């Protein structure tokens, strides 16, 4: 029993050590960005990653934001007293529920489900077929070519997804409110929401995107590094990384929200 517990704790300790090592290695390899030609290679890979991760997620992001924004407002009407101007209440509710919590969480889940799994599969494939060795044979850094663009593109994509999600859900919520209160102008509604967004709100959202996105990327890279010689190693890497990413991202969100808004 003690042996099993020890092995588990050692595994957890090694996991955190690996993630920290990977972070240090990624930061170290950023030095290549000072080399103009290498910066061009990075830029090519970064744009590809940002397009795949951020831009191509717009469709699913829009669909979910429309549903969440309109559904929440529709449900809210069911509990609000009729005939009363509730713009302040809507705005407050929106900032607390959607902008603070749901937007980041759902955007993170979309990033994990759409892009992190794809990156784990893609890099796992490269590892399985010794394509990292090919770069090493050309004296090129695989960390710089493949991992650095992911490390930088994931947080930026997540931040863009947060902003996009919030914009679409605000619009869809407004459309639902119009059904009940056609006199409410979009400017008034938007101003009420913006008035509720404090500097702390911005800092926490940025932290969730930047720390969360980086961690999601690093966890994908960590698990693709575990792919050895079997094809099933890739499936295992995807499964393990998705679990770890969901736990990490939800924990990060809860911890940051509690620290910022509760303590």
């Amino acid at each position: 029993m003690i042996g099993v517990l020890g092995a588990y704790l050692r595994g957890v300790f090694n996991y955190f050590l690996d993630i920290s090592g990977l972070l240090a290695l990624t930061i170290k390899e950023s030095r290549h960005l000072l080399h103009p030609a290498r910066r061009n290679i990075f830029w090519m890979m970064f744009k590809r990653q940002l397009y795949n991760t951020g831009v191509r997620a717009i469709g699913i992001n829009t669909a979910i934001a429309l549903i969440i924004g309109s559904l929440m407002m529709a449900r809210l009407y069911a509990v609000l007293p009729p005939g009363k101007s509730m713009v302040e209440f809507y705005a407050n509710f929106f900032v607390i529920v959607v902008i603070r919590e749901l937007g980041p969480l759902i955007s993170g889940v979309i990033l994990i489900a759409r892009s992190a799994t794809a990156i784990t599969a893609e890099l796992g494939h490269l590892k399985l077929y010794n394509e990292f060795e090919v770069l090493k044979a050309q004296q090129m850094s695989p960390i710089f070519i493949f991992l650095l663009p992911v490390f930088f593109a994931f947080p930026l994509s997540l931040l863009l997804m947060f902003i996009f999600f919030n914009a679409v859900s605000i619009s869809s919520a407004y459309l639902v409110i119009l059904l009940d209160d056609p006199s409410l102008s979009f400017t008034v509604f938007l101003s009420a929401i913006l008035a509720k967004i404090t500097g702390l709100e911005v800092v926490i959202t940025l932290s969730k995107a930047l720390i969360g996105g980086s961690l999601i990327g690093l966890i994908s890279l960590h698990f693709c590094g575990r792919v050895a010689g079997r094809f099933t190693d890739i499936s295992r890497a995807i499964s393990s990384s998705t679990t770890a990413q969901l736990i990490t991202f939800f924990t990060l969100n809860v911890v940051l929200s509690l620290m910022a808004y509760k303590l």
Partner: protein
Amino acid sequence: MSLHVANFYLGFDELSLFEDAAIEIAAGEIVCLATGVLDGGTSFLKACAGIVPFQRGTLLVDGDDINQLPPEQIFRKVAYCYESGGLVSLFTVYNNIALPLKYHRNFDNEFIVKRIQFVAEQLEIADILEYDVHQLNDVQLRLVNLARALVIRPRLLLADELQSGMSPAMREKILAILKRYCNETGASLLMTTTAGDSHSIAERVYRIENKKIVLE
């Protein structure tokens, strides 16, 4: 560029491939290493390119210990052509050839395009430069590997079973290109060969026997 290998030991886990092996190649020489099945020819070439670490021995490229050379120096001196694979599947053929040059050298784009086009036309692969790697057959893969090596203009070229699958005419054409390259640049060539391959351009042919490299 010379290659000096002495007292060379290489193995993986329990498998020992080379014990006290040695080979000497002078600048500008073309040498073939006839290999059998799983006798370590590929691993030997990879060790010479600094890709696979060896356990013991001396491996000097132009008098410099390969393990002490910085990556940029290895890149300029040594190029290894894979027998299979050797390309990154995320990139097109062109990018596979161009990226190492862009990564290590500050050549402008126009210069890189011209150099790649020149080598691609020589090797008759100009029409597949925009292909993805999965669209290539085995011979094309080897030719792209060779093109990537030639655009670097290495001083030591290590080619692993390059001739496999080629027609006799194509084989002679490629060997002539390699011979001309070595004559013009003073580069050395170490090429592993297998049954049916031509040794016509080689000044010496070695083979692997009892974990050593012996003259044929």
